[in-house]
Structure formats: C-alpha cells, structure tokens
C-alpha cells in the first residue's frame, strides 16, 4: 500500500490505462507493470485503484475485455481499446497537455 503513487493527479489513471492499452491488448497485471516500468518506477498503480478504473472504462465502453490464456496457460482477462476509447484517449491527452502547459506557465512565471 505504501507504494501507491502519492501524487498521481486525480483522473489521470484512466488516461494512463488507456495509453497503455493503445500499444496493444493487455491484462491487469501487464498494465500495472507497464506503467510502473515506463514511468521509471516512479508510478506504482495499486490494484485497489486499477480494477475499479478498469470497470469504469468498461462501463463507458472505452475498453473491451475477453478471457484468454496467458503465456503460462493461466486464464486471464485481456483488455483492449475500443474506437470510443481511442477518441477518449485523444481527448484526455489534449486536455492533459493544456493542463500541464498551464501549470508550467504558472510555475515559470512565479
């Protein structure tokens, strides 16, 4: 629990998951690992927030899930991005860009 990323901006988790899935279908564990790795181990996604986020994305039909066998033969649920999810990702990326730029301007100006 202690590893839960302390400063993940609210609402950005959905975006990170969508971005990860934009690379290709993945399962929950894979998603968490990917974010952990790519962020240079700065972000650790707690499973307690990952699964609720995945359910949220499913309800919004931004991702779709299907049961497949993993490399080790274990049955896992694999998530993939839908067309709507792709659009949502674009939207969130843009909004996030604005936000970061705005924050940066404020910080530099100070």
């Amino acid at each position, binding site marked *: 629990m202690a590893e839960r990323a302390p400063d993940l901006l609210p609402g950005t988790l959905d975006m990170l998951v969508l971005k990860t899935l934009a690379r290709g279908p993945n399962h929950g*564990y894979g998603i968490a690992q990917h974010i952990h790795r790519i962020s240079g181990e700065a972000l650790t996604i707690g*499973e307690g927030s990952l*699964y609720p986020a*995945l359910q949220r994305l*499913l309800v919004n*039909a931004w991702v779709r899930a299907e049961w497949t066998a993993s490399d080790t033969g274990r*049955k*896992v649920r694999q998530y993939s991005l839908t067309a709507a999810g792709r659009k949502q990702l674009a939207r969130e990326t843009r909004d996030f860009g604005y936000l970061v730029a705005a924050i940066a301007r404020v910080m530099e100006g100070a």
Partner: protein
Amino acid sequence: MKLWNRIRFWLTRTRLDSELADEIGAHREMLERQLRGEGLSPADAHAAARRRFGNDLGARERSRDEWGFAWLEPALRDARFALRLLRHQPLVTVAAIVTVGLAVGANTAIVSVLRTALLDPLGIRDAGNIMVASVRLEKLQMTGAETSAVEYRELQEMTDTFSAVAASEPREWTAELGGQPSRMLGRGVTPDYFRVFGEHPLAGRFFHREDRETVAVISYGLWQTQFAASPSAIGTVLMLDGRPYRIVGVAGPRFHVPAGVQAWVPVVFSPDRLRRRGYNMIESVFARLRDGVTPARAADRVNRYVAGLKTSNDPTGMAHLGYFIDLDSFSHFVAGDLRRPLWLLWAAASTVLLVGCANVALLLTSRTAGRRREMAIRLAVGATRWQLLRQLSIESSLLGLLSGLAGIAVAALAVSLIGRLAMPGKALLELVSLDRRLMLYGLAIALACSLASGIAPALQLLRTNQAAAMVRSARRGFQRVFLAAEVAATVVLLVGTSLLLRSLWALEQVRPGFDSSHLATGFLLRPPNDPGFLDRLDRNLRALPGVESAALAYPIPFSGGGETSGFSIQGRQHFQGQPEFHGEAYFVSAAYFATLRIPLVSGRALADSDTAAAPRVCVVDSLFASRFFPGGSPIGSKIAMFAGWAQIVGVVGSIHGTALDHSSRPTIYYSMPQIPYFPSRAVILRTSLPGGPLIRQAVKQTNASVPVFDVRSMEDRIAESLGIRRILGILVSVFGALCLLLAMVGLHGVVSQIVGERTVEIGVRLALGARPAQILAYFLGYGLAAGGTGLVLGLAGAGWAQQWLAGLLYEVRPFDPPAFAAAALAVLTTLLAAVFWPARRASRIDPQRALRYE
C-alpha cells in the same frame, strides 16, 4: 450506451463479481511469480504480494461500485428491510394502508368526476374560451332559461367578441337499432357547432352552410355499435322517425357534447324564428371567444347590447320581465347543479385524507417510540443520520405506495359505481373514467401523505442524543397537535353531516301533492304516421289487467318540469307591480288527475269529451288561481298560452312538479288531444303490479315500432330528484364516521401508550396513596383536554364552513343548534369511550407489579 452498459453490468453482477475475483487472483499469482524471480522465497513472495495488493476485497468492492447502481443498492436493502418491518407489525401496517387507501380512493374518484364535469369539461380543448348563453328573467326569478334563435343571431353578429357561435336544439327520434325500435337522442345544430368546440371529424365531414336536415353526423359510439366502425358508414342512410338522413361524418371518440347524444343534424332557422325573441326556444347557444377577449369583456359586451335593446323600446316585450343574456363558462354548463356538491365532496374527502394522515403519523410515532434502541445502535455502529433518514423515508414511501395502490383499487371500484347512481346528470357521470393521469394523482397524494406523516416520527427518532424526557415531551406535543386537528376536522364533517341529514329528513316529509305510490311511468315517442295511436294506446292501457287507472301526459311530474311560457288573460291588462303572467303547462289525458289523485278544488276536471274538435279548455292549479285571481274564481275566464284562447273549467290542487324543495310555478293543464305539439308522451299507470312490463306490453300491442324508454316508478323519480342530496348525505356521513373512528383509534392509541410508559410512576402514586379514581380522572381529563381543543376549533370551523352548505339546506338554518349539539355530543362520547379503557387500565395497575416492571 453507458446506461445500457450499466444496466447490463448490474444485471449480471454476480457473474461479473466472480470473474473479477478470478482476475484479481491471477494478478496476484503473476506478482508472486515475479517476486520469486527477484529472489524471494515462495513464502515471502506470497506475503509480499499480499501486502502489495492490500485488501483485495476492498478492490472488488470499489470495482463493483463502478457498475452503475451502487447508490441504489442500499436503497433496495432498506426497502427489503422496510418490507420485513411492515410484515412484522401487520396491524399498524394494515391500519395505515386502509386509512390512507380509503381516503385516497374517495379523493381520486371525486377528482375523476370533477375532471369530467368541471376541470376538463367533457374533454373539450381550451374549454375556457367557450361561453354558453342563457336567458335570465329577473322578474320571474328564472335563470339559465333557454334562448330563442334571436340570441343566436345577435351573438353571431358580435364578430368583434366571438369567433364562432352555434346553437343547438334537442332532437329525439325513433330509430331501428339492432332490430329494436329505439329512442335516439340527438341535437339539431347550426353549421359552426363543431368549430366552436375545435372538433375535427374522425371520418367524413361536419356540416356546411348549404346542408339541410337530410344529412347527419353520428357519434363515435353509434359508429362503433351500429356500423362496426366501418368507413363505408359514410354515405349510408340512417332512418330517423321514418325519414332518411345521409351520414356525412363521424365525430371523434372523445366528443360528447352534450353527454349521451348519438347524432347531430343541421338546423336551419326560419327568418321568423330569427326575429321573434322569447318564442320557439332552442336549447343552448355556444360561443367561442375571439383570441384575447376575456369572458368578462364578452359579458360586458353582451350586457351593453341588452341595455341598448331596452332603451330602444324593445318590441318583443321581454324587457319588462327583467330580461338579460347570461354568459356562463362551459364547465358551468356541463356540471350544472353538480358543481357545489362535487366541491363539497372533494373537500370532505380531502378532510378524511388529512385526518387519515394525522392518524398514520400518530401510529408511526408510537411505533417509532419502540425503535429508539434500534436507531441508537445503528448510529453507534456508524450509520449516518442521513442513512437513517433515508431508511425511514423509504419505509414511508413503501407504505405510501401500498396505500396508493389500495386507493387506486378503491377509486376504480367507486368510478365503476358512479355511472349507476340514481341521480340527475347520469349521461355525464357515465363518461367518468379513471385514466393513467388520475391513477398517478392517486399514487402521488398517497405518497405525499405517507411521507408527510412519516416526517414527524422520523425527526423525533433522529433526536436520540437528547434527554429521553425531552424527546418524550416533544412527542406529546406532536400528538396533541395531531389529535386536536383530527377532532376538529371530524367535528366539521359531523356538523355538515347533521345539517345535510336534517335537510334530507325534512324533505322526505314533504308530500308532493299527489299520491306517488304504485305509479309506474314511462316515455314513448309518438309514431309520425299513425294518427289514431294515442287513442288506441289509451284504450289498451285501461284494458290492462290489474291496472286501476291509466293516463297519458306530457311531461309528467319529476321529469324536468312543464313547458314554461308567458300567457294572456282575456279582458285583463297586465299592470306594473302585478305578478307576471307566466307559468308552466302540462298536456294531459282526462284520467290524469284521477290517476295521480290530484284533488279537484272546484269546477270540473278534464274529460274524454275535450277532444280536438271540442272548444279548447284547460284546468289550472290552486297556485295559479290564488296568484292571478286572488279573491275570485278563475273558472269561466279564458287564457292564451299555447294555441290560442282556452277556457278555464276547473281548479285542482297544486303539486310539486319538479322537486320537493321548491313549489312549482303556476300550472295550467291542457287537454292533450287539443294541443298535439310534442312528439314525446308519457304513460302513467296506477297499479300494484310491476308497471314497467305492462307499459311495454300495451305500447307494443298498439304499435310495435314505437320505442319505450325511461321506464321507472314515480317513487324512483322522486328519489332521483333527491339523488344529489342523498348521495351527499350518505358520503358525508360515511366520511364523518370514518373521521370519528380514526380520531377514536388515534386517541386510544396515544393514551394507551402514555399509560404504558408511565406504569411505574402510576404504581408509585398508587403505592403512596393515590386513589384509583384519581388516576382514572386524570387520564379521562387528559383525553378530554386533547379532544376539547379540537372540539372548540372544530365548532368554530364548522360555523365558518357551513356557508358552503347554504344552498343545499332545506328548512334548516345555519348555526342550527341541534346539528351543532349532535356533532359535539357524538364527538365527546366517542372521545370518552376511546380514553375510558386505557384510563381504567391505569387505575387498576397493581403497584407491586408496576414497581417490578422495569
């Protein structure tokens, strides 16, 4: 999409949940494997994965929350709990549901009548813009009198005020419907009739200006029953009174103006009719207001016009009668005399509803008193006040829903009975129905009531952190207010009941002036091409076995009154200040007076020899004689009302011809064969056998193609004239009794509860030497104090409210002491009875046991 997903997820949530558990399990395994790969021992890896993962149940729970209806689930849980609670206390539940259900049902049923008659009269679109003209003759105290074609023409000429004006006059025909000669009710209408009501034909067309009385528009009902709703009905010929009418159109399913009419035909007024005011009356003139014209402005316009007529030395001679044209709203026209009783009933039913609510609140207050522990525990283990409030309001809503459903059932039953009531305006009442909007209304008021009655107990429950004694005193406050309100409302209803019942009783003592027992009556339509029909019928009627005597007449008493008209007296001029020469006429066969047993005062009655060929004669009633021939005898004088001069040959007793609560106008009886104007005839038989079949038999035997209708005993007709009063009396008594019962139950409950709570204290008092009689007196006093406030308020309220009854009272003055005393006595007795048992229980408490009680 999102909503659909939510619903889908929510519906399959059990499967999804187990899948989620699998998924999270797999995730943990993978994590463990990775940790082992990093060199941890299997046991350490397991523990670490567990730690990393934290509480996987928590993750599952939060994931589940994403599936849509998380906020709903606790509500459903509450509802299930509430249902268990309701089942657990069946008596309280049933009492609450029955109370609110009955009140809601009565209220909804009355609102459904109100809607058809007044709020949305006959379902006509923007009926507020339709005015109905009628004549008022102030000097004769006549209002709502029929107009002649002249008023129709005049209103039509006011194009600045009205956008469409139409007149209608009654028609009744004999038609073959389903192989049986039947009487068909219709209206002759001017071309704009349907336009005034904004009505479009369902099939075919309505009338053109060029149409003559050879075409007809039929009602939706007739189209359904006689033409199987076939489009080919347009163009077919309908035989009415043996004359062909080509059907040109069908009216819409909801067009019932006026109620009960089956066909409309065009009417074309002769130039003479359009000129002669006060003659050859038509039934009604309907006028649609031009956009932006208010009813008040239209009335003003008409009044100015009438004032102008009077100053211009009106040649029609109506001005001296105090002639006015009244414009009434369409709802006024439709509801007629029902308006006052309907609002009264609605008020009574609403009072019951309020009393019912107060009682349910009392019930719930005493019930929640027993749930304080439950609430305290819930609060202690972490429930928020909001959650408790939600649960309590769900309990109330559930109660409301159940009572609403009960109420709709009651209303449906009541509405199905309304059409069968014996009272005037039947055709209108048969149109009353319960639709979805009214059901929603019923459900809504039931919910509102239950929530309102749930609020007080709920608020109390939530004040658990206050001292118990304070809560208790707050509850007492609530209960006193509710009790006083209940008793006050009950008193108002009971005073109303006794005023109405006293009036009804007084009216039932009124003798109509003739012997109404053993009289069978029925109407028929004279066949158009059978000249000897009436004579033959008269003979056949008299020859019937078991018939003491038989008469023909038009009209008959208690069927709407005679034909009213002005008249002249030969050799007399009317002077200012004298009673106006105005009265009503009946056209009767010679045996009429003997059959009805109307006493002959002087001269002779009509005789069989007064035929069409004989000199025209008439008989007048004693009211006519005393009003127009005071101190002298009218016999030998000649009057002219219908068809020229007729000599008065006799005076008979005056009767109540239309209603028991007011006497008839001065009445003239003409010999029927001498005035053969009206197509309708009534048969009256004096017989101790069932008369209806005899009438039908005699008519059929005389001419099989003649329809017989409206067959009833004279007693039934008189009863129907009291119908509104009877129904009002019965319903208001039932409502009053219901309130009384509720107040009794409420007070009994409250006092029982107080006695229960104070058992120990009473025990101590008794142990210390209080006498049981003192305890008894104390609680009786409490009950009377609680009820007494309500009683005083109620008497004051009744004094104020009785003004709404004024028009419905007969020989009972407002502030009638017996009525008020009776209501007060009934309430006091009931209150005492309600308090007596718990009070006596208190006085018999055994101190020993009471002190061990806690």
